[in-house]
């Protein structure tokens, strides 16, 4: 009888699988991704390596010494134990973080604009006491610009009524507002001493959300040539809420990581972060094979650092608030070993 190894489902629950069962999960995961995104599946050698990582009773798994990568964050403390600056110091001095990110608990650029001087002052104060790079992060969150939260008509209400032209016009109007908020926030945080800005969950509201991010990056890069600009995606695939939006002649709806990364680089960003959503009903082995298959084509042409999103619910990390170290270690190691990422 084959030995069973403890392993995780996508929701974090513990289960046990044999090597044969894990191999089957890995093969199903890579084929599912290959079929969906029309990309090549992982090779037999890559699946063998994943099996070695997954079919193990070890609590922790890690890359070889010398293969370590650096970490960036989407938030690193929100007054968890004191002030936000104290939280950032804890990340630096006690967690050994390579970088930290200042962010407000209302993590959207639209909300940040109303408290921008306060955020800029916090950035200046934080930079005085930290040694690691301090980014500022927030979400483009295009949906906040639609009624009743914002000024533009609500395209989510218009689309079910088949008022497609009005829904598209509403999104285009919202893009303009979002770009202004992102650019003004970046300007203020740069003047306060930020090392860079992180557009987190770009594309969350679809192709308009992603377009607003790209247009904002263009203006920020032109104004601040030395500013770090990181783009972390919301999902593996840009949803076509508008459907016709383009950037530099490329249709945004339907872009997978490789296409996303190319546009992010062209716009002027310095770090790109693909996000591959976890299927909570499938195993970690299935999820990691699927995630790696979707990101691998991006790594083959990457000219800027790629920090894959490895956190709750993305990058084969279970969708649960308290992440099991065995799952985090395996997924982190696998992404670096197979994809040769620049960071997480």
């Amino acid at each position, binding site marked *: 009888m084959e030995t069973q190894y403890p392993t995780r489902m996508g929701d974090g629950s513990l289960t046990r699988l044999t090597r044969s069962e894990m191999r089957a999960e890995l093969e199903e995961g890579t084929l599912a991704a290959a079929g969906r995104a029309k990309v090549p599946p992982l090779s037999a050698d890559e699946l063998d390596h994943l099996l070695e990582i997954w079919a193990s009773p070890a609590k922790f798994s890690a890359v070889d*010494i*010398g293969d*370590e*990568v*650096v970490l*960036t964050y989407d938030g690193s403390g929100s007054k968890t134990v004191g002030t936000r600056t104290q939280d950032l110091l804890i990340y630096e*001095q006690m967690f*050994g973080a390579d*970088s930290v990110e200042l962010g407000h608990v209302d993590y959207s650029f639209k909300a940040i604009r109303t408290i921008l001087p306060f955020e800029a002052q916090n950035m*200046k104060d934080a*930079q*005085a*006491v*930290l*040694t690691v*790079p*301090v*980014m500022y992060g927030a979400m483009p969150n295009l949906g906040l610009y639609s009624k009743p939260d914002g000024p533009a008509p609500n395209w989510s209400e218009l689309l079910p009524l088949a008022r497609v032209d009005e829904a598209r016009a509403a999104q285009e109007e919202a893009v303009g507002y979002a770009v202004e908020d992102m650019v003004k926030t970046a300007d203020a945080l*740069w*003047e*306060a*001493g*930020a*090392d*860079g800005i992180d557009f987190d969950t770009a594309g969350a509201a679809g192709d308009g959300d992603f377009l607003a991010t790209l247009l904002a990056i263009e203006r920020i890069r032109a104004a601040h040539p*030395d*500013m*770090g600009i*990181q783009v972390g995606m919301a999902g593996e695939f840009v949803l076509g809420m508008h459907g016709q939006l383009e950037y530099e002649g490329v249709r945004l709806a339907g872009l997978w990581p490789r296409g996303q990364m190319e546009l992010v680089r062209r716009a002027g*960003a*310095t*770090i790109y972060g693909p996000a591959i959503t976890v299927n909570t009903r499938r195993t970690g082995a299935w999820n990691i094979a699927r995630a790696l298959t979707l990101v691998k084509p991006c790594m083959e042409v*990457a*000219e*800027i*650092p790629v920090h894959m999103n490895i956190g709750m619910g993305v990058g084969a990390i279970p969708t649960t608030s308290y992440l099991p170290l065995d799952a985090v270690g395996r997924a982190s190691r696998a992404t670096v070993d197979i994809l040769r*990422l*620049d*960071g997480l």
Partner: protein
Amino acid sequence: MQITRGMRIVEAKAYVAERLGVSPFDLSDPIAMEDVRRERQLGRITTFEISYPTQSSAMEAKFRIAELLDLPINCVQRFRQHAGLA
């Protein structure tokens, strides 16, 4: 090097190692790097039991990091301006 220069990790490790006078593999050795940080005043982890009041930390260390890596650091440049050091 990644954040502001968009440098891939292998290239970034090689650049930093060369500027520090160590090998890229040394960057993975916390014992070796602790000595480098101490000797070059690049900032160290402090605790109540082991503190380094006579060594550079935070903004002081970032001045040295910027010079050592030949890398403009935004907050360092602004500190210079605000303190009248530019």
